[in-house]
């Protein structure tokens, strides 16, 4: 079975009922995607499938075969000079010094990045609602709010620069 993850093709064993989170973490070693509840409650396992946030703990491989999957490891891009460029959401999380333990952070960042990809100019309320199903046990909510608001501003800007 072929999986297309972060721009790379992977071949994994057949068995379409397996859950994406375990294939990523245990079979492919892409442990940047975390697991918190394995039941859809916490959001730690969030990845993007065709740009849309998906809980990989609820996603059988059959549903993503052949689709474009992005995990936290694939969110940063290479600039023309070869340097790595963090995604604006990642950069905002660094700037606001958001993570504590960090276990929830891949999910937080993927959720925010997917949401901003679809709604680049949200209100703060919309943003917070979009983040409402991602738990952070360390309680970084204050900074998550600050970072996603900053990233929203930035992605609006980035969008308009591209347009210009």
């Amino acid at each position, binding site marked *: 079975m072929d999986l297309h993850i*972060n721009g*790379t*093709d*992977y*071949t994994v064993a057949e068995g379409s009922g*397996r*859950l994406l989170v*375990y294939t990523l*973490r245990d*079979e*492919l*070693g*892409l*442990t*940047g*995607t*975390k*697991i*918190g*509840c*394995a*039941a859809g*409650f*916490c959001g730690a396992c969030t990845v993007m499938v065709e740009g849309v946030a998906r809980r990989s703990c609820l996603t059988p491989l059959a549903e993503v075969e052949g689709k474009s999957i992005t*995990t*936290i*490891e*694939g*969110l*940063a891009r290479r600039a023309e000079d070869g*340097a*790595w460029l*963090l995604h604006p959401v*990642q950069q905002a*999380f*660094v700037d606001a*010094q*958001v*993570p*504590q*333990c*960090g*276990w*929830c*952070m891949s999910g937080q*960042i993927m959720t925010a990045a997917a949401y901003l990809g679809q709604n680049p100019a949200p209100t703060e309320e919309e943003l*917070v*609602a979009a983040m*409402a*199903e991602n*738990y952070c*046990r*360390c*309680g*970084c*909510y*204050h*900074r*998550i*709010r600050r970072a996603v608001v900053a990233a929203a501003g930035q992605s609006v800007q980035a969008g308009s620069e591209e347009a210009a």
Partner: protein
Amino acid sequence: MSDKIAKAPEKVAGQPGRSRWRPTRRGFLIGAGIVAGGVALGYTYGVPWVRLQMAGIFDGAEGPPGSFPKEPWAWFEVLPDSRIRLYLMKVEMGQGVHTALAQVAAEELGIGWADLDVAQASTERDMGDSLMTSGSSSVTGLFEPLLAAAATFRSMLAGEAASLLGLPADQVVVAGRSFADSADAGRSVEFYTVATSRAEWEVPQEVTPLKRWQEYSVIGQSLPRVDIPAKVTGQAIYGMDARVEGMKYGAVVRPPTLVALPKSFQAGQAGEVEGVIQVVIADDFAGVVAESRAAAQAAVARIDATWDEGHRWQQAELEQLVTVGGSGGVVIQEVGDVSRWLGGEGTLTAEYRTPLAVHTPLEAQAALADVQPERVRVWCSTQGQGFVRGQVAKAIGVDEKIVEILPTYVGGGYGRKAGWEVAIEAARLSQAAGVPVHVGWTRAEEMRYGYFRPLTHHLLSGRVEKDGSLVAIEHRQASGDVAFDFLPPFMSAVMGADFGAYRGATIRYDVPNKRTVAYRRDMPLRTGWWRGLGLLPNTFAVESFVDELAHGAGMDPLAFRLRNLGDEGDSGRLKRVLQAAAELGEWGKPAPAGRARGIAATIDVGTPVAMVAEVSVDGGSGKVRVHKIAAAMDCGLVVNPDGAIAQVEGNIMWGVGSALIEELAVQDGQVVATNFDRYPLLTIQDAPEVAVVLVDSGDGKPRGVGEPPLGPVVPAIANAFFALTGRRIRQLPMNEARVKAALA
């Protein structure tokens, strides 16, 4: 298998340093199937990148508490690129300890921040520290030893550099990653050249002079945390992520009730599940090793286990068990004579209760064990690798000397990762199967099979003079064990009362008569370390009650507190944080319509903290909303102010959750929750706005920040609820049912 799949290269952080003090290098695979040419992220940040190169510390649980590495080689290594690596035995669980300790080291090394690298030490690197990463003690405990080690290390290298350059020692200065002639920058020698120029080094006898705290330039800066780049890019490795070649997955049979004892285990149908490698059966233990987690979990459910299930405990029985009274109370504070003042007319009394709670870190317990005849290695998320080492050795019957524990990043500790169950499970399964085995607990296991914040019960009585001065307060509290479950029985016998359970219980106001009595209650489930230990329950009770006394005396709760605190010492420090929090939280100004404010304060591990909470309540649903919390904390000399503020923010969220929603229910002998549906956590939508101010009492001493801010959160909210509604909720959590009942 497709040719697109190739072996991952061994991820080895850093290059070998100098053999004299170089720890053994170990490969650490990031997954067994990374695509060749796939993404291997590597950022240059200009800040040190925390490596997952792990080598040793802790001398096991035997060492005297509070002993620290004395010689600089234990801490430092010069890398071939002349950066200096700092090895830390303290684990990073989000509290920013690696950054803070790196700042302490950088201060006396006198090198650039980017030239310092930080690495987690494993138990192999004999650093002789027997302490856990806990109790908000890492920076305070290591501050002076680390400053001294760094200063000594620098002066040894500088002295050697001077002789290599043929200069007097006082004429060499640090220039980047070199020592240079202060008169001629062209004459220099790199750190690595200096470090490798001798085979043997002598640690100087005389003490290298340290900077005065007024001269600090790295300490006191809000430098960016060294672990954050790895955490926003998915590169940070936690126990749940630990991978080595050839590893398999394990799962373990769990008891059906809180007190169940195994009668027998039989493999049953477990071996028939596809992917099972071995079913492991012992008298007290049964588990499975399989090719995948799914197979291990499916198979473990098919092991035939019979149990002596014991009594099926109910919630109400537990509450009754944890009730103040009877014999066995230990007086832990006695000033004056409360009995002369309390009991008669004018005495106010009240009763408080707090429920069981569970840490439920988002990364569940996880360990990877590789048990070989001559050598045992365990990678795990742990706050106490020295204890894990001893426990694993005992469990699998080997000499502790061959056991190495390699701590990873910890995906949430809060006291829960001070345990060692999962490391033992992985080690037993690995020993039986002869392959490395990873055990990662499920959320249900994390909810049910660890240890909990105990139930508590508090009886308070107090009396206030007409002028608003406190005459007497008594606090009697009962709690399940906190520390005693983890200590040798003789200690509990000697101490009688569990210091963890009564943390925060004593009365800190200047009252001529005060008394605190602790009752130890043995609960039929494991209770133990939980962020702040007894601080949250006790501060909830005491600071709610102080508020009741203030209102009873017809006084403003802030004015009442200030009235009963002196200006000197801790009283004065407490007073100043109360004033600072009041100012930040707009105490005394009218709250927005439909809201009210409450205040509370505490002093814990020498750090006073005060908070003002602003709340509203939806009378229809009974939902309390915490809009804002303003906090003031005096943690003395702050190594990293932004990091300290982040700890206050996190504690506030943790406290809001405990105040409003968290309660672990027991029914028919078992914890009800198996996942977040029955034990929900606070979400960003219910998170308050927070404002934090740090107050420095100016004595140049750092104090703990990881837990003290947890104290005032809950009573500040409860007191605001009273200010808003005139009703007091004395049992946590203040959930919708209780709020509606209180308002009815």
